Every structure is written in structure tokens, then in C-alpha cells.
């Protein structure tokens, strides 16, 4: 009796102490409730044969029938391979470049130069993929592209980039890095800003070289951030970047498809003249479930190896 009373008292105290903070959380809670949880029952649309007249819940339940078409095409293996590998390449290469940029900025002495350079690097992030696609075409097309013009000066034969599948993994990864590196580096840069200056000073006094300082102090300090961002990006590994692929390559450039077809572009082709919400929703649902499982799995692994860095 006495114990529970005490506990009650304790809880009351905590409540009193924290209620202001809880109040601050309310907008966020409401936001997620309305925009993320309330619409969730709509996922049901993925399992029905959607009928406009009957609505989502009145339509006939057909289970996983909506996914049948992917299996019929026999391309599932290729699509998953491409999607996952591309995302893996984007995540890893992006991360390396972003960390590198953040560290380099951190080493810069001129604040003014750093500010301008940073702004400049963030710029590509605000260019839409539609425009990026146009840039790409201006550079790579075989009739009057910049690339072939330059190659021409050196006496090389023109390259038909748009019918050369082997080139595309590199081009796509490069574009993804170019577009995201500046913006992504901000997070790492912010983490570095929070670094304890005394530690660096101490290292300097002890005679550590710049390389040593980076290797033994700065990089280890970035580890939690790297792991956190990695965990977050795991959720989307089965979700291709449709904007990038569609705008760079076009919808039906068959010669490139072996190397560039991802789930999203495949579904686009299947749905473009056949607005079937249920099928689209079903695919998206599978991607989400897969992402969810992946996040949980990665988190468990992280927890085992470095318990402090796990999200939950």
C-alpha cells in the first residue's frame, strides 16, 4: 500500500515537472496523429479491387492479387537488385563524400570563404530533377552534347551515352552525390561544431598532425551521426529515386533498362495508362514493410555492437 502511494506521489511530481514539456509536444503529436496515423487504415486499398462507386472499404477484398503482375513479368529479381544496389551505392558514396566535405570545411580557416563555399555546394539540392535531366541531356546527347564536343576536340570518337548501359551506374551515382553532398554535409558539419575544442587543443599540444587529429578525434566523434543517418536511410532502401531515374533516362529507353530499371520506373510503365490505385498502393506497402523490417534489423545489430548508438 505504502509503496504504491509513494509511487503515485513520484509520478505526480514528475507529471508536474514535465507537463510544460509535454505541452510543447502536443502540436507534433497532433500532427503525426492526423497526417501519419489517421490515414493509415487507407492502406487497406492495397488489398482490394478498388471500385469508385463502393469506396475503399466497400470494395472487394482480394489479398495480394494486386502484386501478381510483378511476378508475371519475371523481372522482380532484376528490379530488386537494381533498386537495392543503387540505393546502397547512393548511401555509401554520399556518406563518404559528405563526411569528407564536412571535415574539410572544418579545417578551413577563412570563415568568409567557408560560408560562400558552403552555400555554393548546397545549391544543387534546390535544382529539381527535371532540370537536372535537361542538363544531363545537354551534356550527354549524341547530336550536340557537350561531352561529345569536348571528346571531339581531343579527336576521340563520339560516345552514344544514351545507348551505353555500362556508363549509367556511374553517371547516376555521380549525379546523386553532386546533388546531395553539400546539403547532406551540413548535419556532419553541425556535429563537428559541437566538438569539444579542448580535446583538439590538447591534441595539438601533444603534437598531433592534422591527419592524426582527423583520424583519431574528428572521425570517431562523427560516428554516432553516421550510424544514425545510416539507420534512417535503411528504411528507404527498397524505394528507388524515381525523379532521378525517370528524368535522366526517360521512361522507355529499353537499351538501358537492364542497368537502370528500378521498381519505381517499372511500376510507372505499368500504371501510366492505367490508373490502378490499388496496385500502386500494394507495391508501396510492400516497400514500406520491407523498409520497416530493415530498420529494425539494422537497429538490433547496432544495439549489439554499440548499444549507445541505437535509435531505440
Amino acid at each position: 500500500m505504502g509503496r504504491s502511494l509513494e509511487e503515485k506521489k513520484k509520478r505526480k511530481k514528475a507529471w508536474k515537472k514535465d507537463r510544460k514539456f509535454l505541452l510543447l509536444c502536443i502540436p507534433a503529436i497532433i500532427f503525426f496523429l492526423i497526417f501519419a496515423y489517421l490515414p493509415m487504415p487507407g492502406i487497406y486499398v492495397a488489398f482490394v479491387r478498388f471500385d469508385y462507386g463502393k469506396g475503399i472499404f466497400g470494395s472487394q477484398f482480394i489479398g495480394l492479387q494486386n502484386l501478381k503482375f510483378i511476378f508475371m513479368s519475371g523481372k522482380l529479381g532484376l528490379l530488386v537488385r537494381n533498386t537495392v544496389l543503387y540505393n546502397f551505392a547512393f548511401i555509401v558514396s554520399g556518406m563518404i563524400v559528405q563526411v569528407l566535405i564536412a571535415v574539410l570545411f572544418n579545417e578551413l580557416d577563412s570563415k568568409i570563404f567557408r560560408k560562400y563555399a558552403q552555400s555554393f555546394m548546397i545549391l544543387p539540392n534546390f535544382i529539381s530533377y527535371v532540370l537536372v535531366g535537361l542538363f544531363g541531356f545537354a551534356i550527354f546527347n549524341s547530336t550536340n552534347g557537350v561531352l561529345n564536343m569536348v571528346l571531339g576536340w581531343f579527336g576521340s570518337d563520339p560516345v552514344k551515352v544514351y545507348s551505353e548501359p555500362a556508363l549509367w551506374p556511374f553517371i547516376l551515382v555521380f549525379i546523386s552525390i553532386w546533388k546531395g553532398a553539400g546539403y547532406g554535409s551540413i548535419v556532419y558539419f553541425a556535429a563537428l561544431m559541437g566538438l569539444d575544442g579542448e580535446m583538439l587543443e590538447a591534441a595539438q599540444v601533444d603534437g598531433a598532425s592534422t591527419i592524426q587529429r582527423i583520424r583519431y578525434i574528428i572521425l570517431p566523434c562523427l560516428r554516432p551521426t553516421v550510424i544514425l543517418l545510416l539507420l534512417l536511410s535503411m528504411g528507404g532502401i527498397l524505394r528507388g529515386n524515381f525523379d532521378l531515374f525517370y528524368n535522366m533516362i526517360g521512361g522507355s529507353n529499353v537499351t538501358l533498362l537492364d542497368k537502370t530499371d528500378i521498381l519505381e520506373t517499372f511500376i510507372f510503365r505499368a500504371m501510366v495508362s492505367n490508373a490502378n490505385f490499388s496496385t500502386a498502393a500494394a507495391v508501396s506497402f510492400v516497400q514500406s514493410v520491407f523498409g520497416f523490417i530493415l530498420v529494425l534489423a539494422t537497429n538490433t545489430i547496432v544495439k549489439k555492437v554499440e548499444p549507445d548508438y541505437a535509435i531505440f
Partner: protein
Amino acid sequence: MKKVKRILALMSALAMTCGMLAGCGDAGVESNGGSNTATVAETNAVVDTENMVVEQNFEGPSGNTPVVDGKIDTSKFVTVKMLMLGDPPAGGADKKVYEELNKILKERINAELDVTWIEWNNYDTKYQMELVSGTPYDLIFTTSTWLNLWGNAEKGAFMDMKEMLPYYAPNLWADTKKEEWAGCTYKGQIVALPEHRMWQLSTPVFVYRADWAKEFGIDKVDSMETLEQYCDAILANKPGVIPYNAPGSVNSNELYAMWLRQETDYVLGPGSIGMGCPTTNKSKDENWTCVSPVFDDKFVDFAKKMKEWGDKGYWPEDLLSATIDSEAMFLSGKSGIYSCNVSGYYPEIGKMAKEDPSAELDAFFFDEKRGFCFSDVMTQDSCSITATAENPERALMMYDLFQYDPEIYHLTQYGIEGVQYVVNADGYRERPESYNDETDSYYWDMWSTRNDALEIPEYNEYEDQIDAIKAKIKPWTTVNPWGSFVLNTTNVDAEVTAINEAASTWLPAIQFGKAGDPEEAVAQYREALTNAGIDTYMAEVERQMKEYLADQE
């Protein structure tokens, strides 16, 4: 408002039917089928309109307007309730028009009109609610492409007008052909009124520069051979011009559309899927069939030819990944061909004249060789009478006036003369100076009453040229032969999606000769279609067609 309606119609047509192509934009292939309609072939027992006996006396379903000794008795004053779709004109000018209209209607048929609008916002739900609740609308807008006319007819929502029509809508009855009625017939009942006197035909074309053709000594581009000559001549004589400077997309099908109409007998109809249309109907006469032109030997020849054209540089090397404004290219003289539908050709004449007055345009009509083109379904926009209607007879009389009486036609279509429109000295319709869009805006959304014969045209500088084109293609008009047949894809949903994917992957690349070796590409396309279950799909379509035909008898 027309635009809104068109967009809505297009959207819902796209959404509700998977086997349809909306014939516009860069889409060359256009199908008349899908959810659609019109005549049922001769073999079917349709309403035998010619042998219907018109008696001297007819009671009519409501008894409010009987025919006695060959004369219609309108002594009882009634109100006809009509439902239209759309947002009512903001300024409320429609009320004034109806006031004016009701004066005339009272005098002519002793009745008045009461209009209800269903606003665009959430219109489909509201419309179904009205039908389900059984509000007794005498005239109600409906369409088979985006408001489920046949589905509702199946549920008995609409009244059979067959017997009433000759008595109460004599003009409409006399002016409508047997096959046109067939397009409005569901299981032997006429449940809708046709949209049939607003002539339009969507037929795909390649617009080309007639002045260049003359320069090259080509009299006319009207076949694949002459098109080839024209393109070769452009490459030889017009440096910097690409014969067909256009982008390729997953929806590209213009060359396939050309080939189908020039080299084969296949026709597009119900069962044609998506933009790639790997399935069609066998021919104009054998239209209750579902076959695939892709598996035809001729398709390989087509692929080879297109590869040859592509290699010669008829279109940009990287077009499948390019973004090109083909219209701008054509207008600025950087392209020799513009692909569009005939309705897209009309405005091009004026635009070109503005860009380059010395240019002359002509068009390669794919359908010219075969000499026919299926019209839209009769029930694209339509009007029905609900099963619970209280005054169907007077409603039909009124509808007959809406469509065939010049005075009432002008009033309903354009509004009040002097307020909404005036007719100028040259006989063209224009806005009066006093017209104020905020207060005087008026429109009539019962689109099926439109009638070309009673139209007062607005002035168009290029009218003569447009009229000449219309005169050329009008004789090709052939009533859509598939009656009220609607394909139900429930059993083959996965196949439809998979076939769509296969077609949008392979057709654009093959038709532009950008899929590597043509024979191999065709083999791969066929394999993809087979994997996608095209055989199952075609069998299902034919099964449903048979069932439908059996039902009609």
C-alpha cells in the same frame, strides 16, 4: 466549363477504363472502345426501329400526357425536373434564361423546366446518391465513360424510352439512325439519348509542310512511301531540320498507329489496352474479336522499317531520353512533321500562319487509306429518364425542342440574345458590348442536345481551311460498332497491368528503331507479352464479347 468537363471526362475515362486511349496530345493511336458503345452489329436483335408501330392512341407511363387520336394532350400543366452536372453560372444568369425559356415552354407544351445542378466537387458520389435515393428527375445527365451509365441501367435506374420516343420526340426519333439508337440500347431498352448531332471525329494525323513537299516535288504525303520520300528530301535539302523532331515517351505510339491503319486491317476497340495497344480487334467487319498485331509477321517488317528510318535520322538519336517540344520545333521550322489528332491540327493552321506566313500545311491522315474511322460512343454525353420520373412524356417533348427547335436551341445553348450573345452583320455569333462575365456568364451542361445544324458559329479566320478538312474526313465517320459493350477486367487485372508494362517498355523503343536488332526486339516484346498473360487476356475479352452478344439476343 467545357474545359473543366473535358478534363474531368478525360480523367475519369483514363481512370475507369484501362483499355482506352484518349485521342489527344501526342497520342497517335486512339481507341473508340473501352467502356464504350454504339451500334451492335446487324446480327444482333436490337430495337427494330423501322418496324415499330405507332398507334393513334397512347397512354404513356405517367398518364399526364396521353396521345389521343394522334394528338398529344398537354392540357395538364407539369413541371419537368432536370439534373445537369456542373457548377451553376456564378452570376445567376441561368435563372433569367430559364425564366425566358419557361415562358416559351408554357406556351408550346404547357410545362416548365426546373433545373438542379450537381457541382463538380465530389460529383460522382452526389450523382449516385441522387440515383439511389430515387429523386424523380425527368431528365438526368449521364455518360457511359465516366458516370457508369450501363452499370446504372443494369440496376434499373433508368426508364425505357423506346415506346415513348416516336410520340413525344418525333424530330429526334426521325433524325437518329438505327445504329445510333443501338448505341443507346441496353438489353433491348433505349435507356439514353444519343449525343449524335454534334459531329466530331478524332483521327490521328501527321501534319507536314506542304510548301516543302512542293519544293521537293512531292505532290502529297498520304502513305508510308511518300512519307519516306518527304523525310529523305528533308534530310537531303534542309540542313539542321530533323524530319520528325519529337521526344519519345512511354506513351509514344504514333508510328504504330500509322502502321496499323496503313498496312493492316486491325481496328482499335474494346479490348485495346493502354497506349501501346498490343491487342486490337481483327478488322472492321470482324470486330467482335480480340487479336494481337504484335504477333503478326508484318510487325517484324514494321520494326525493321522503323529501325531503318531511325538509323537514317528521321528523328533525334536520343529521343527516348529527350525532352523536346515537338510543336515548337515544327512551328519554328526545325521539324517537318507534327503528330497530333485532327482536332489538334485546326489550331496549328493559325499558329503556323503567325510564325511563318509563307508556310503551307497539309496532313497525312492515317485513316484515309482505309476510308473509315469509328466515331465516339453515342453516350459520351447523354441524357436519361430516371425510373421514378413523373413526367417522362413531357420531358421528351422538351428534349426534342432543346435539340431541334432553333429558338429554344439558341436560348438554351447561348443564353438570351442581346445579353449573352448577338449575331453580327456577317452572321457570326459574338459577345455584346454590354456583356459582363461576372453577371452574365451562362452555359448549358446538357451537352447531348448540341446540334450542328442549329449552331451559330463564332468567327474564325481560318474557317475555310478547317471546313475543307472537315469535309474531307466527315465521310469516314463510322458509328462505333460495339454497342453498350463494356469490358470487365475483374478477372484479368494483373494481366492488364503486366501487359501495359510490357507495351510501354517495348513499343516506343521498337517503333523508333531504338531497341537494337529489330527481330530480336520483337521477339523480346512478344515474350514479355506472353509472360504478361496476353493469351489469357484475349480469351477473356472474347468470352465476354460472346456473352454480351448472347445477352443482346
